[in-house]
Structure formats: C-alpha cells, structure tokens
C-alpha cells in the first residue's frame, strides 16, 4: 500500500494523467499571477524542470525500497499508465501554440516515459535527467521571445529565420534537442529506456517510445514552421541575439550534446 502511495506521489512529478494536471498547472503559470511571479525568471523554471524529475525518481526508488524490489504487477500497470500518458500528451502537443504550454506538455510526455523503463528496472536517474535537461535550452529561448515580443507563441511573428538568423539557428537546435534528435541527451535517454525495457516487454516499451517520439517531431516542426519559417511581419522590430549571449547558448547546447554522449557511453 505504501508503495502504491509513493508511486502515486511520484506520478505527480513524473506525470501520470490525470495527476499530470497539477504539474502542468504549475509549469504553465502566468508570470502575472502570484506563483507565476516567483517563477517568472527562466532560471527558476529551469530549476523546477530539473528538480521535479529528481523528486519523482527519489519517490520511485523509495517505493521500490519499501516493496523490497517486488513490484512486478504494480510496475507493469504504472508502465502502461506512463506510456499512455506520454502518447496522450504528445498527441495534445500537436495543437499547442503557446511556448509555456508546449514545454509543460512536452515535459509531461517525456517524463512519463520514465515509468516505462522503471517497470523493466532501467535505472531512472540518468534518463530522467537527460529528458529534463533537453528542454532547458528551449525554455531560455522561449523566454527570449517573450521578452522581445510579449509572448512566446507560434504564428505571431513568423519568418524569424530571415530577421534574427543567430537566434533562429539556436532556436532550431534547441527544438531539435527538445524533441530528442540524436546527440541530445533526450535521444540517448530514449535509447536507454528502449534498450533496457525491450528485454522485458517489447510492445509495452517500443510502442509508447516510438509513438511519442514521432509526435514530438511533428509538434517540433509545427514550432519551427510558425516561428522560424514564413514571411516576416513588417510592423515588428527585430533584435537578434548578441555575440556573447549566442556563444553562451551554443556552449550550453554543446555541453548537453556531450552529456548525451556520456549517457550513451554509460549505457553500452
């Protein structure tokens, strides 16, 4: 019973629908609200994105410890629940146009996959970190868009690729990293979950991983199509990233790619 409670608590932060509604509410807070004000700075939200999965992984480990490692049927139920949550949020992500909602839903879809691996005894810490860290570059760049244009939203200011080429290049890389394209920690996290889980149950592992991954790509392309590509508006003032900020972002992306390699070396 205690294991079930701990797993359900973990399901709040390694989100399982409908427990996921809470974490989505938190991550989507409007900066104008009281709680949102405290999370207005991107660093605070980045901290939250990294902290929440760690809490979830801790609760998961505690649940396993309490059960003495014997969580067979319960783990399978949670794995199916996690897989369904992941695909469900990946499907919902397709129609999201707001940056904050997009990140919150992708976080939900990605971190729910930890349950798929956990059921098959894949150590959850590194995949959880990999999936969460992959979202950070985009979080900061969404914040940059909100600062410049008032909100980070698809379709409001298309064609940034022509007006803000440096920002756009980094934005493209950040989106690719978020949707787990190779060299992102997210890709290696998915590989680790897949390689580990397939030894226990092929369908239960590969189906949610594959479907979510496919739908993330689709929604990532929607972001690029509405922000980077298209014809720029004439009535907006565009300010590209300065060299120093750009180098900082690029270095962060490179560091994350190296972390991805570290993950794969640990995995094989």
């Amino acid at each position, binding site marked *: 019973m205690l294991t079930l409670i701990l797993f359900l608590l973990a399901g709040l932060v390694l989100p399982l629908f409908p427990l996921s509604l809470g974490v989505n509410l938190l991550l989507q807070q409007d900066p104008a609200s009281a709680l949102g004000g405290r999370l207005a700075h991107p660093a605070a939200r980045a901290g939250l994105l990294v902290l929440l999965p760690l809490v979830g992984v801790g609760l998961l480990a505690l649940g396993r410890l309490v059960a003495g490692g014997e969580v067979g049927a319960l783990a399978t139920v949670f794995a199916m629940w996690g897989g369904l949550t992941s695909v469900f949020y990946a499907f919902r992500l397709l129609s*999201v146009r707001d940056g904050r909602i997009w990140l919150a839903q992708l976080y939900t879809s990605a971190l729910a996959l930890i349950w798929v691996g956990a059921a098959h005894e894949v150590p959850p810490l590194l995949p959880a970190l990999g999936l969460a860290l992959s979202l950070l570059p985009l979080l900061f760049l969404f914040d940059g868009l909100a600062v410049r244009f008032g909100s980070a939203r698809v379709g409001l200011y298309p064609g940034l690729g*022509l007006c803000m080429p440096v920002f756009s290049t980094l934005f493209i890389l950040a989106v690719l990293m978020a949707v787990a394209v190779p060299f992102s920690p997210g890709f290696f996290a998915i590989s680790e979950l897949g390689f580990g889980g397939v030894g226990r149950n092929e369908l239960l592992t590969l189906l949610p991983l594959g479907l979510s991954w496919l739908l993330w790509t689709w929604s990532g392309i929607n972001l690029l*199509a509405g922000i980077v590509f298209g014809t720029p508006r004439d009535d907006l003032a565009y300010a590209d990233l300065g060299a120093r900020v750009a180098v900082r972002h690029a270095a962060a992306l490179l560091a994350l790619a190296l972390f991805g390699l570290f993950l794969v070396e640990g995995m094989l």
Partner: protein
Amino acid sequence: MLGSALAVRLVADRQSLLVPRISVGASALTLVLALLLFLQQLGATSGRMLGLGLSVFTLYIDWLSTLMALLVSAVGLVVHVFSVRYMRDDPAYVRFFVLLDGIIAVTLLMVLAGDLLTLLLAWHLVGVLLYFLLNHETRRRPATRYAFWTLFTHRIGDLPLLAVVALVYHAFGTLAIPEVFAALAAAPQATTLLGLPLAGTLGLLILIAAFAKSAQFPLHTWLPYTMDGPTPVSALMHAGIVNAGGFLINRFAPVFVHTDSVLLLALAVGLISTIMGSLMMLMQSDIKKALGYSTMGQMGYMVMECGLGAFSLAIYHLIAHGVFKATLFLGSGAIIAKARKDPNIPEGEIYQFMVERKVPRPPVSWIIFAGITVTVPLLIVFGAHQLVDGGFLHRQGALILLLFGWITGAQTLFFVYKIGGERPFTLLLYVILSFAMVILTYVVVGHAFDALLYPDPDFREALYQAAAVDSGWFVLVLLLLVALIAMGWFIAFRFVAEGQPPSRRWRTLYLNLYTLMSREFYIADLYSRAGEAVLAASKRTNALLRWR
C-alpha cells in the same frame, strides 16, 4: 565534410569567396579518400572495424561500405561543383553549403557505420538535414509543408530501426555490426520475447525502415512533392539519399539469409511501387515531378530486386540510377530553358507521333511484328543470362528478373511498331541491338557486383533461397504470367493494327482510370485529411482539458 561545414560557417562573414572553395575542396578530398579506401578494400579478404575508443562512431570498412562511400562522395562532388554557380546569387548561399556539407557527412557516416547506434544516428540525421535543405526557400509555404512530409516519413522509418537496435542489443549484448551478424549466424533460431523469430522480425523492421527512406508505397508521397528545394538538393536526394533503403537491405543481408518469406514483402511492395511510380510518371506535365515519380519506380525496382534475392544487383541498379538521375536533374533547368526557345525535336516520324499526335498506319503485318516482339527480347535476356551464368535457371529471383527484362524489351519493340515509318525493320534492328547491349552489360556488371559484394557463392545462393517460394507453385505462376503477357501483347498489336487502341474502345473505364491517376490515387489527399483530423482532435482535447 563536417570540418568543411564548420569552416564555411566561420569564414562566411569575412571571406565569402572562400565558401565554395572550402566546400568543393573538402568534397574533392573526400572523393579521393573514398576512392583510396575502395581500392585498398579491393585487395582485402575481409572487412575491418575502425573506432575512436568510444562505443559509438565506429566505422566498418568492407566492400559494400566503401563502394557506397565512393558513390556518395562522387555524387556529392558533382552536386557541389554544380551548386557553386547555380546558387551564387542566392542570399542563403552559406547556409546551403553548410547544410550540403553536413548531409554528405552524415550520409557517409551512415554507409560506413560500424555499429547500429551510429547507423541509427546517421540514418536519423539524414532526414533532419534534408528537411532544412528542402526548406531552403523559407518564405514559401509549399516548401515548408512538403519538407515536413519528408521529415515525418523519414521519422516513421527511424522507428523500426530504433526497434532493430533495441532488439539486437537485448539479444546479443553488442551493437558492432560484424559481431551482430556472427551472433545471429550462431543462433539463427533465436526468438523475441513474443515468440516471433528474431531474424524474421529484424528483417521485417529493416524493410519498413528502407521503404520510408526509398519512397516505397505507401510511404512514397514525400518524394514527388519535394520539388521546392533547390535543384542540386533534388539531384542529391534522387541520386543519393533515396538509395539508403537499398543500402540498408544490403547491409543487413546476413540477417535476411535466416528469414523465411520476409523478402516476399519487399517483392510485393517493390512491385507496387514500380508500377505506381511508372504510371504516375507518365501522368505528370512537370519535368521535375515526373522525375520524382520515376525515382519512386526505380527504387521500387531496386527493392524488388532485393525481394528476389538479387541483392548485389540492387546496388548496381542504385548506382546506375543515381548517376543518370543526377544528370537528368542537374540538366533539367537547362533543358526547360532551351525548350522554351526551341523544342529541338527532329522532324520525322517521332515528331509526328509525339508532338502532332499523328498515328501512322503500321506498314507491316501485325502478326509478324508481334511474333518478333514477343520472342526476340525473350531470346536476348535468356541468352545473355545463359552466356554469363549458366546455372541461373534454378534461381527463382533470376527468372523473375528475366521476365521483367523481357517485358521491357517487348514494350520498346511495340513502340517501334506504333511509330511505324518507312523503314520499320531498320529501326527495329537498331533497337534490338541496343537492347541486347544493355541486357548483356547489365548481366555482366551485375555478376561483377555479385562477386565483389558477396564473394561467397554459398551466401549468394542462401540469399536467393531466402527469397524463394514453393517451386511447383512458382513454375505454375511463371508459366501463367508468360502466357498472359504474350497474349496481352498480341491483343495490343491487333488493336493498334485496327486503329482502335484500348483507350478508345473502353473510353469510360479509361477516363475513370485517368481521373484516379491524375489525383495520384488520392493517397496524398488521404494523408492530408488524416493529418488535419488528428490536429483538430488534438485541439478539441486540449480545449476540453483547458490545455493542462
């Protein structure tokens, strides 16, 4: 090539003139290295692994990988050289060269990959980089739309490969390609957790991955529509990237020898794609789109060859196709520009037939001509095979390929009859001689590729056996097909001789078919509708849950 991409980006702001020099120079150097690697491998007795001491980024140097690297780097150099002038006035000149270098680098990594994770990484990145190259004209909505189709289809092809990697790692605990093949050979009866044969499951997944990259039905819609990218990208795509499917099937040939009936799927899908691509090609008025469908048909043929067990022939086919298709794409712009001034079609029978639509009355007896059409190509293809490889008759795959050679030859001779003219038998003789040359070359080179890529005759035989079906049924179906096709030719000849082509005789059916084909069987429309429905459902769900 990756170094070149980085160097191009770094020097672009200060020394823009250096951009093409660096890029073309790196491309030429890559070709030289690929050639040296290939020549070195020619004298080797087996493949070898190269690595950096990491678990990923290992390279497997064998005959297949070096041959493919040679093709990729050669096509890459031609496309680079062509792009220098073609793209000169383009504002996104630098970005284009960075992406071009990048895609050639990952394609080379793909063909040379020594472990399955590197293969998956490169396989995946090819699709991503192609998306950005096709989206070169960032303002154009169609470019964005069809680039998305491309990436999405390629991603569908990535998923089975991910499953392959996961299954192999679980089964054998290694991802190194030669070790995987050795482990599978030691335990060919291994099964998955679901109790399915492992080799068969892997084979099936590999085929699906290959179908997506090589634009096979029903994953073909991305290819004919991606014409908004620059012409050099089209050339690279049609001469290089679509070949990835054929390469993948060949790379995993040691898996397919342990499968049973899986290759029949390749045969069926390849056949459908060949017929569909060729039909669609004839329906197009846009030269680039026609070439796009032609590529689909050719790739279908290549996949079909694999489905028949003729793996090395597929490699020869993809190289030959790559060379001529790159030439056609790179020349298409100049041809269109010239044709606008002067169509340059010589006056005579062909001009009357093709342009003025005057169908002359055939001057000779249709029975004689039909007899020649049905028998001579059959004798040529049979004779050429017999000359080069006397033992081909027991291979079902070789017989099916022979059948296709026969149909192709007969179609050409039928066309000669339709054109008519004053000296039909002279023209017929020229066509027969050309056909004999083509078939003989095809067979000889095909056998040379066989000996190069799969030097072990037992392995070659095992590939043909993996593609074989029950011999009694096979002979029955083959004879039935031959009889039906021969009868079809005789009927077609008779109709033409009577001046009543089938299109006039069964007009309603013909028009209905024409309409269906002009809408490309509604497949692209169906996908578009399905995509819109999914997006609408997603929006409704989000609204219901207040986007939480």
